[in-house]
């Protein structure tokens, strides 16, 4: 297992390096620069600015500097926000998204997985039809509809919860609900599918023929296998949700990471684009590795290769 993880870790580093290089050269090849604005800057000042950020050097040299800086944990300065480094921005906003994301995902798992299990066990009854119809709606409704809707009902009409800002725990509820509904719906459907597949296996008949009670069959004989589709989705979902959602953060005015992805691109903030891309890629790589480890733990027929 250690060998498997080490190997996958090295693979992940290579993937990250490739992503870093591709992003860097794509950004560098894009016309314009972070410093080209509508207001004409005198050439000598522009030259000074470019020299400050290292833009006067050849691309390959810039790449090398930037890469070594990144490896030592410093993503470089923000090219747009003076006196703030990319690391500062991430350190400030990532914890917010991490908190919101993990709470949302936890809620999604706690709602989605039991719902999916019950729907599979009681298939073709109202315990299946009702949650599955709701979950279809949950998947179809985009967050930019769900978010304002929740804000309207619970914030403005019922006046139970704050609709924007990021202060106390009550500020988490509405954005987390908006985010988790989609994921809960997705987990419910995946779990239902996985469990149905397990419940139709021959070994379930064997268990019944042994006199095993119905719910023991569900949790002891079927749950491990039935959760595999949900676990596969969990890795990328976790990476996606903790890196923040631009839509939800904008609706609820949350100082999370998601907004920076958009701002960085709009502002041509080269270092920030690079830093965020690498961070997101690293999250995906790590989460997929964790999902693979979970797979092996759940399915004894899989071995580490």
């Amino acid at each position: 297992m250690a060998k498997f993880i080490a190997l996958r870790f090295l693979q992940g580093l290579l993937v990250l390096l490739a992503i870093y290089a591709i992003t860097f050269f794509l950004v560098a090849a894009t016309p314009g620069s972070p410093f080209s604005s509508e207001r004409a800057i005198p050439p000598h000042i522009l030259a000074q600015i470019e020299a400050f950020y290292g833009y006067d050097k050849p691309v390959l040299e810039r790449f090398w500097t930037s890469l070594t800086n990144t490896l030592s944990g410093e993503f470089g300065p923000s090219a747009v926000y003076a006196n703030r480094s990319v690391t500062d921005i991430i350190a400030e906003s990532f914890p917010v998204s991490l908190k919101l994301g993990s709470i949302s995902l936890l809620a999604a798992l706690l709602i989605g997985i039991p719902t999916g299990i019950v729907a599979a066990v009681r298939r073709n009854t109202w315990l299946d039809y009702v949650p599955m119809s709701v979950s279809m709606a949950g998947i179809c409704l985009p967050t930019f509809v769900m978010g304002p809707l929740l804000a309207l009902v619970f914030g403005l009409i019922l006046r139970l919860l704050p609709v924007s800002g990021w202060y106390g725990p009550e500020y988490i509820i509405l954005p987390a609900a908006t985010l988790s509904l989609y994921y809960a719906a997705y987990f419910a459907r995946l779990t239902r599918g996985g469990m149905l597949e397990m419940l139709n296996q021959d070994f379930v008949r064997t268990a019944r023929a042994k006199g095993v009670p119905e719910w023991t069959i569900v949790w002891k004989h079927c749950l491990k296998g039935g959760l595999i589709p949900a676990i596969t989705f969990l890795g990328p979902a976790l990476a996606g949700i903790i890196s923040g959602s631009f839509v939800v953060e904008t609706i609820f005015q949350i100082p999370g990471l998601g907004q920076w992805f958009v701002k960085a691109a709009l502002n041509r903030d080269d270092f920030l684009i690079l830093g965020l891309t690498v961070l997101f890629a690293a999250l995906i790589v790590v989460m997929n590795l964790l999902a693979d480890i979970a797979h092996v733990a759940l399915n004894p027929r899989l071995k580490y290769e």
Partner: protein
Amino acid sequence: MALLHVQDLKTYFFMRGGVVRAVDGVSFEVERGQTVGIVGESGSGKSVSCYSILRLIDEPGRIVGGSVMFDGEDLLQATNSRMREIRGGRISMIFQDPMTSLNPFLRISTQMVETLRLHTDLDQRAALHKAIAALEEVGIAEASKRIHSYPHEFSGGMRQRVMIASALLTEPDLLIADEPTTALDVTIQAQVLDLLKQRQERLGTAIILVTHDLGVVAGTCERVNVMYAGRDVESGTADQIFYDPHHAYTQALQKAIPSLQTKGDLLYTVPGMPPDLSKPVQGCAFYPRCPYPKLAPPDGPPPELVVLTEGHCAQDCQYCDRSKPIEDVLTSDVTEAFE
């Protein structure tokens, strides 16, 4: 009194396209310690009959009639919790495909101990010891180590041994074996059947052996029921069925067994397919495939079972000309196939 008395069992499947009468009035008895074979083609209702005994029929199937008297108790009237006591406790079952019938996610030990914990007072340790002993008895080497393996770490034959050992753990009165050798190599088949026989002698278990292999039946069963289209067409002792088959289907099945004499000849196969059970049977279900010359179009209810000799009964067919022996009717068929 017989250990198991199945009377006029009917299990229908209520599909969107209509009702499939998978089992439509099956009756048979099993005495203590006896081996009863149920033979027939795929789709003749053998397996569904067996699952119905333990009420293991899933929607859209339903047992719609008859009774299953097991040791004086009608299993079709028993409560669900009473059924769970009987399943795996007094009646065990083994299945056709040992590859899929064991849970690939759980260790063999977990699966065997589970049965014992459900049906006996043994604690975890004692149950594990008993399970190991059971594996040793079915010839699994290093059982105390191998019991902690997962099913995929065993070969097909070994898995079926594990299934047999698990099924007999609780020393049930009746073992239902649903095509236990179909998925195995021929050499392994013989071993598994020997093992079943040997365990049966030790424990005095009665066995219902479902199979479409008449060779298997000949070697192991005392009584045989031949099923066709969800009904019994003939039942009798193994000798009666093999040496004096009465029903045209039994005769045709018997002719389809390859023997040393038929070497080099075309193998006889029963022509056609089993009937569509979603349509009601008119008269004799075997009529369209019957090799005998037809006399009259079949109508009315299916023929009654008549007693031919002591312990031997068969459906009495009136729609075909049975005056010539089967050999004569069949030979012409084979020559036709040649031309």
